[in-house]
């Protein structure tokens, strides 16, 4: 698993500040990720790592500073344009509660494709392919309440990757799983991302999860420090 040094920067944050009320969450944070790269964002609780992920993905606008993605300044885009970008170019995996309980696993995975206008049959065919890749094809007709936490997280990874995003944002993707299930989810997630050349921003406080990355960035007191040159 070699880092793609030669690839150009895909997503860059420069001097990003974000305050919630009177609490500064980010205080001049910087960040860069290249195509196909997996970067772990680490740091203690409350250090600002989830806020950094939200700013990088355009969910939350920073108070100041810039986020550039593939030549676009996210701050210069309208809300509608940022939402469209999130649907087509970004994928998301969170720790909890991301699947729609009323839909089957196949329908859940097909959902991002349906939202971009892919016909139902084609969307479900591609969803089934991804469920197979994540080794959960057996539960494709089940609803989220009928499957285990580990299976649910694999379905969530399939849904995040089904529209071939260029960046996958994963916020504590194994935080609710036991060691064995967490491990398998990470192995499948990394293998799938490497195969498709998807960059992964992996927020985690677990070093064994961060060990799947090419490099780590440590967020402390709202500032991000790239550890590539530390050792």
């Amino acid at each position, binding site marked *: *698993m070699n880092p793609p040094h030669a690839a150009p920067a895909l997503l860059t944050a420069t001097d990003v500040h974000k305050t919630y009320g009177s609490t500064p969450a980010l205080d001049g944070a910087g960040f860069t990720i290249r195509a196909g790269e997996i970067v772990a964002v680490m740091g203690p609780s409350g250090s600002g790592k989830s806020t950094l992920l939200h700013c990088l993905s355009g969910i939350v606008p920073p108070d100041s500073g810039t986020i550039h993605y593939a030549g676009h300044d996210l701050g210069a885009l309208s809300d509608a344009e940022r939402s469209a970008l999130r649907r087509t170019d970004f994928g998301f995996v969170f720790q909890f509660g991301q699947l729609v309980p009323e839909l089957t696993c196949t329908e859940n995975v097909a959902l991002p494709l349906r939202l971009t206008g892919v016909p139902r049959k084609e969307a479900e065919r591609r969803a089934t392919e991804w469920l197979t890749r994540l080794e959960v094809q057996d539960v494709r007709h089940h609803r989220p309440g009928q499957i285990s936490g580990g299976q649910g997280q694999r379905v969530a990874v399939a849904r995040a990757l089904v529209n071939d995003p260029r960046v996958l944002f994963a916020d504590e993707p194994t935080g609710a799983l036991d060691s064995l299930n967490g491990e398998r989810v990470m192995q499948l997630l990394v293998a799938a991302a490497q195969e498709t050349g998807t960059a992964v921003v992996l927020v985690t406080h677990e*070093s*064994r999860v*961060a*060990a*799947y*990355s090419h490099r780590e960035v440590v967020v402390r007191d709202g500032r991000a420090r790239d550890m590539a040159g530390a*050792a």
Partner: protein
Amino acid sequence: MHSSYTRGVYLMCIVLRMSISHTLLGLLEAGPRHGYDLKRAFDSHFGQDRALHYGQVYSTMSRLLKNGLVEVDAVEPGGGPERKRYAITDAGVTDVAAWLARPEKPEPYLQSLLYTKVVLALLTHRDADALLDVQRAEHLRLMRELTVRKTGGDLADQLICDHALFHLEADLRWLELTAARLDRLASEIRP
């Protein structure tokens, strides 16, 4: 059996001696001291489990003198043997700096050595945060290697790598906690 035991003890003594040399050098950086004061300072900071023998202090000082890392700053005649006061040389300061900056090879039961480094960094007003960051990066580098090996390996590989990974993870948790407590530690060891 006997030879492997002897070799184990021998290696342990070498490791211990290397660590004591750097520790005593680091303590000297704060200012010249007599051998007796050095032993007291060592015991006070690091001798919770095992106090240093006077013999260890003087044999270490004699080696450091020979290597040019310390010099005799003053000699005070007394009723008994002459009392030497030792001072660290520029070469000694460079040696301590290099030792503190160099990450240790990650292995189980590393904490006492890392603890020593953190305390000395604080006592000598160096950047203890940076020391912990360097060590964290070194641990994660090894964890990445083990993760790659585990992912491509058979069950035996997976189990062996997992054992090492869990130990390294425990070290990393200790590094995190220590980083969070540096200010408090600094205020306790710098009265």
